[in-house]
């Protein structure tokens, strides 16, 4: 009885001990490590770890500790994990976030606690606009930007009309809005599917065919992209209605999509063959460290997130209590990004190029993604005017 009393007392003391600006840089990383999209989280973790290797696992002279948390692709779980990282682990930075709905659920906790945040994928319009925040940065894009680039490309190709299909959640709505804002042809129809549970798109494909549109645009990240392409090919639409995509074909889904993905274009701010030195090193070292795997754009953004954090910590020589100095340092985007140089808008979203990627057969017969052209130079998201920050 007495022992347990002392034990309890000791535990309370241990928990209550104040967080000192410690000897380590603590980073919390929220992503999806279980379920059908675990492969994405895995790639982000691999790339983040590789970036730390390249940094000598130190930032500003202090060792780095990363705590990875699994959101299970669920907004409520993501929010809990974010709270845990901020309130009990007291991390200096929080990074990651694949899904826009998970990010939106977690954002308030981050902003209220004034934790420095680097978003490595999700780009909901709200974060670029009215919910922008001084300590929140993104190394990815705002959701609308990539499909906007695709819409531009479709204009260049002279596509007359399109049928839009996407998942019914924050990112899906942004993506379809993005294409609609730049595509000059006729929108013959748009369909939203239940996310993430709906995996059968037969009803939507039938409607697309019946609409008489000249083409289809889809946004289906992760495994859903494989399923969509399977069903699109099986329905015999490949010859009738060419497909245009955003975030549907990447190095993780391609080995499962196989021939179905051949010749299906996508827009992207990073492709594995971008010719800058940092990118060559990233791709080569990734493939060496993780044999059999290839980095994706999710990974590239996570790699950049680690580099951006490092640039901030270096600027304050490891004293992470100087948040405003770190913010000022991060706004300069003063690091070698694997996508090439870019600038931050005043809403802390990247202003960057978007490229056209295509699926081609490699010399050894395996399928690979390749940059074909630059669609837009220095694209800035269309929500930055709504951001009150200066």
């Amino acid at each position: 009885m007495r022992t347990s009393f002392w034990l309890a007392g000791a535990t309370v003391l241990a928990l209550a001990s104040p967080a000192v600006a410690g000897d380590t840089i603590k980073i919390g990383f929220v992503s999806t490590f279980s379920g059908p999209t675990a492969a994405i989280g895995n790639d982000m973790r691999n790339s983040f770890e590789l970036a730390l290797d390249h940094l000598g696992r130190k930032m500003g002279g202090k060792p780095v500790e990363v705590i990875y948390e699994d959101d299970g692709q669920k907004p409520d779980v993501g929010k809990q994990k974010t709270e845990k990282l901020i309130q009990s682990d007291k991390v200096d930075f929080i990074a990651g976030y694949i899904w826009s709905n998970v990010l939106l659920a977690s954002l308030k906790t981050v902003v209220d606690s004034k934790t420095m945040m680097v978003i490595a994928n999700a780009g909901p319009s709200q974060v670029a606009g009215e919910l922008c925040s001084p300590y929140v940065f993104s190394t990815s894009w705002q959701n609308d930007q990539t499909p906007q680039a695709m819409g531009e490309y479709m204009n260049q190709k002279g596509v007359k009309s399109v049928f839009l299909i996407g998942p019914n959640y924050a990112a899906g709505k942004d993506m379809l809005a993005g294409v609609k804002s730049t595509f000059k042809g006729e929108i013959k129809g748009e369909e939203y599917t239940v996310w993430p549970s709906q995996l059968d798109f037969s009803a939507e494909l039938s409607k697309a065919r019946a609409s008489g549109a000249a083409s289809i645009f889809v946004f289906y990240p992760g495994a859903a992209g494989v399923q969509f392409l399977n069903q699109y090919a099986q329905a015999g639409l490949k010859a009738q209605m060419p497909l245009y995509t955003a975030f549907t074909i990447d190095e993780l889904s391609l080995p499962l999509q196989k021939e179905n993905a051949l010749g299906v274009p996508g827009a992207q701010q990073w492709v594995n063959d971008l010719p800058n030195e940092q990118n060559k090193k990233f791709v080569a070292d990734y493939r060496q460290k993780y044999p059999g795997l290839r980095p994706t754009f999710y990974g590239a953004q996570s790699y950049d997130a680690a580099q951006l954090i490092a640039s901030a910590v270096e600027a304050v020589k490891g004293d992470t209590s100087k948040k405003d100095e770190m913010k000022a340092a991060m706004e300069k985007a003063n690091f070698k990004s694997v996508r090439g140089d870019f600038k931050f808008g005043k809403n802390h979203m990247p202003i960057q190029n978007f490229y056209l990627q295509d699926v081609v057969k490699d010399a050894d017969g395996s399928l690979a993604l390749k940059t074909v052209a630059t669609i837009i130079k220095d694209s800035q998201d269309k929500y930055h005017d709504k951001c009150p920050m200066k």
Partner: protein
Amino acid sequence: MLLVIEQFLNGLQFGLLLFLLAAGLTLVFGIMDFVNLAHGSLYMMGAYFAATFVAWTGNFILGALLALGATLLLGIVLEFVALRHLYNRDHLDHVLATFGLILFFNDAVRLIWGPAGLALPLPPWLTVPFQIMPGVYYPAYRLAIIGVALVVALLLYFVVMRTRIGMLIRAGASNREMIGALGINIKLLYTLVFGLGAALAGLAGLMQAPILTVQIGMGENILILAFVIIVIGGIGSIRGAFLAAIFVGMIDTLGRAFLPDLLRQVLSSTAASTAAPALSSMLIYLLMAIVLVVRPEGLFPAGRR
């Protein structure tokens, strides 16, 4: 009009696939009074076996048959090793144990096949769209699913209603002590029923695999629908499961297909396209709620205990 026919086929195909899953579940639940949450794991295992065997043999049909046998065997082993010790416990214990099995299977698959999932490519003769009427094309593979599922449904009906073993199964469902007292090996019978249920789940999984992907946890979402179906159809009733599955498949597909257009008549276009998917996924559960209020025992209840 052509669109209606196409959507009708989509609904039928989805419904029949759900039937295969629900049939196994209703057999095990209705006859053995055993709640098997791991039914979805057997569906997943069927798909993984098929992807493996098809890659190994290079022949889709042969690989699928091998996978079917493997799932049957897996079901029998599972029943023999783990589940038969639970029959005398109450339902909460069933749920706990079979939930544990879901976790077990998910991690076993992760260990054996890795986290990334597999692809099950179709042979070329199944990938071409088939012309069912002038101007109406339908994926040949989806037609094949409709055909196979209908044949299996007929076979199942014949076995349960017209053969001696089917008679024993039905008798076991009505009164398991009595059939045991009459000298029938009820344990063996249960093992067979469970194996049959597993094979049906495996068949559903392997047929769905080329349309979707073979991945960890693929059986969990669809299992919920299977439970809804056996509740609507009446627990233990194959006929009920069949009709309820077709019903649910139709409501789901036609709801997704036509609800957005209906809503656009009254709402703005964006509001309608956002609300429609949410609403159409609720329809099935609304139906279940109505059935539970009007006929709590289901639409086509099996014989009374």
